[in-house]
């Protein structure tokens, strides 16, 4: 009986240790997600909507996972510098100009990008802000 109790204690503590030891990337992802959401609410939600649904044909939805994946390396530049080209999203054309957000720091861009690409049905995972910084330096 005593053995059982000791064994189960041991097992529980092992599980607890594993559980508390989430890897650094998961913690970073959660961190980016929550900060990214605040940036999203402040800067993006007006046009793109609370659930990334867009607004008519004025602002495209952010639910096209294929578009977001194929343009993965351009997203940071679009977020910061806006866009003035036709995008085909979910099979529809969007021609309105997207404004620039020069006030966003690289870390803000990284966080909001991670938030968008892991919300609204997207699941692209974590991108570090250093990577985003490099992308932002090479915007066309």
């Amino acid at each position: 009986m005593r053995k059982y109790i000791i064994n189960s204690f041991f097992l529980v503590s092992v599980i607890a240790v594993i559980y508390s030891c989430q890897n650094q990337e998961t913690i970073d992802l959660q961190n980016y997600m929550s900060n990214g959401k605040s940036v999203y609410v402040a800067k993006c939600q007006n046009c793109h909507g609370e659930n990334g649904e867009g607004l008519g044909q004025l602002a495209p939805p952010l639910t096209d996972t294929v578009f977001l994946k194929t343009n993965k390396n351009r997203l940071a530049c679009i977020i910061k510098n806006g866009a003035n080209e036709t995008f085909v999203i979910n099979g529809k054309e969007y021609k309105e100009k997207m404004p620039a957000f020069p006030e966003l720091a690289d870390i803000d861009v990284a966080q909001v990008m991670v938030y968008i690409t892991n919300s609204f049905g997207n699941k692209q995972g974590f991108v570090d802000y250093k990577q985003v910084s490099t992308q932002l330096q090479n915007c066309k």
Partner: protein
Amino acid sequence: MNKIIFSIAVCLLSVTILSSCKQEKKLPFYGERHAETTTDANGTEKVDTVYQTIPSWSFLNQDSVVTTNKVTDGKIYIADFFFTSCTTICPTMHRNLMTVYNDFKTNPDVMFVSHTIDFKYDKPSVLKKYAQKLGVDGAKWQFLYGSKDSVYTLAEKNYLVAVGEDSTAKDGYIHQGYLVLIDKDRRIRGAYDGTKTDQVEQLKKDIPVLLAEYKK
């Protein structure tokens, strides 16, 4: 036994009395008001409260057609001030107003009137494109273009919505995001912050209340 019947009867009676006491809900009146004394045919004097009303107006709509307040005759309508290149509150306002529009699309007694405050850029053709892209088609929702003076005066003096040019603002203009509810007699009966979902929900509840006032 008699006692029980008696108490049940008392209960029923009180319930009926209480439920019949419910007062009909009426929307408030906004703006200035004054008392006016009128004399009717019999020579008896009557004091009436006169409320602020929206004056006559005439603007170009999204189809470049001269549109006057006559289009709202016999209807209640919701008015707001926006501009098409606005990236701050307008998209949210019109996203929310769209849900009201969709709810009352088939009701001929309800109209929507949006005034642009960007007198430089928002010509009727721009408004038309905006309306189409928002998903609005037809005359139920009018997008109106007018001179700076006429629109800004109407906004501030009559609809009680603050608007203005501001070179320090991101898009060049600042304005309040109110959706103003106007009754069939051109009086202001409500103002709802179009950026807040709960206030827009209230507007949806108030529209039938206002329409009911005219049913008698």
